[in-house]
């Protein structure tokens, strides 16, 4: 058991840091510049007298607490958080692959990675598309509950499709995947956004593309490393 755990942790550390590095490059190049532009709109909006902007207000509640300085410090914290996200998702992916018990290779790993992309990016963003600072949003806790529930249901549905062979299970799987979207995500208040729609569209495309690269890297690396290590330990 310690042997398994040690191998899982080692694979997750390597694959997570590698995929986290890919995400960091994509974020610094594409999504973070868009966030910085959005913040200029957000601050303009909250500076305007008599305009009580809900989103800006919600953002300001953190203003009392420490935050990294704009520039190098902020970039380093984002890179660190990207790496930790990579390791976290690598642990989940590696554990799921190992629970399934199949001997992995890079190609199997890639398919698992694409499933992760569907579970953690595509499905939640149908109801809760990636948001820029300064756009109106529903209550945070409500959105988090819907996000997590959608990811879990999508994962369960995909697992049913991939790992069972009977028609009723496949039908149930499709219903389970559709369910959170029929239920509906928490709705944002009907307020004007401080940020232009075109900027938000650009941001959503960037987040989705970088996430695809992240998950493909994570899956490839996890499958490849698991195969290498299991060959090494079995001689």
């Amino acid at each position: 058991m310690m042997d398994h755990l040690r191998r899982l942790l080692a694979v997750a550390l390597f694959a997570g840091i590698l995929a986290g590095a890919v995400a960091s490059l994509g974020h610094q190049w594409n999504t973070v510049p868009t966030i910085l532009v959005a913040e200029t709109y957000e601050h303009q909006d909250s500076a305007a007298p008599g305009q009580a902007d809900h989103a800006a207000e919600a953002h300001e509640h953190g203003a009392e607490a420490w935050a990294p300085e704009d520039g190098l410090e902020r970039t380093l914290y984002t890179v660190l958080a990207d790496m930790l996200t990579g390791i976290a998702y690598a642990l989940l992916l590696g554990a799921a692959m190992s629970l399934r018990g199949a001997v992995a290779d890079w190609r199997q790993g890639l398919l698992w990675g694409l499933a992760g992309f569907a579970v953690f990016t595509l499905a939640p963003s149908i109801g809760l598309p990636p948001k820029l600072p300064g756009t109106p949003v529903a209550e945070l806790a409500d959105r988090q509950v819907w996000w997590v529930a959608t990811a879990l249901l999508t994962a369960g549905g995909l697992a049913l499709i991939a790992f069972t062979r009977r028609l009723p299970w496949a039908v149930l799987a499709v219903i389970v995947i559709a369910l959170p979207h029929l239920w509906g995500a928490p709705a944002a208040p009907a307020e004007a956004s401080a940020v232009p729609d075109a900027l938000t569209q650009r941001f959503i495309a960037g987040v989705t593309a970088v996430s695809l690269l992240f998950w493909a890297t994570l899956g490839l690396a996890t499958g490849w490393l698991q195969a290498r290590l299991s060959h090494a330990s079995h001689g």
Partner: protein
Amino acid sequence: MQIPATSASIHQAAASSTGRVLASVLALAFGTLLLWGVGFAHNDLLHNAAHDTRHSNGFPCH
């Protein structure tokens, strides 16, 4: 000698499978905890440090 050897190897395989499942569940728990800290915790310090990562990963944020 054949039967004990076989049952021993079955026993070993079962133990190895239990170990694999236990290790996987532990890794799932670590991963969930880490993901919660980076992407979901309401703590202001964690939120501010991971702000751009949370937005860029599509995690629900302010």
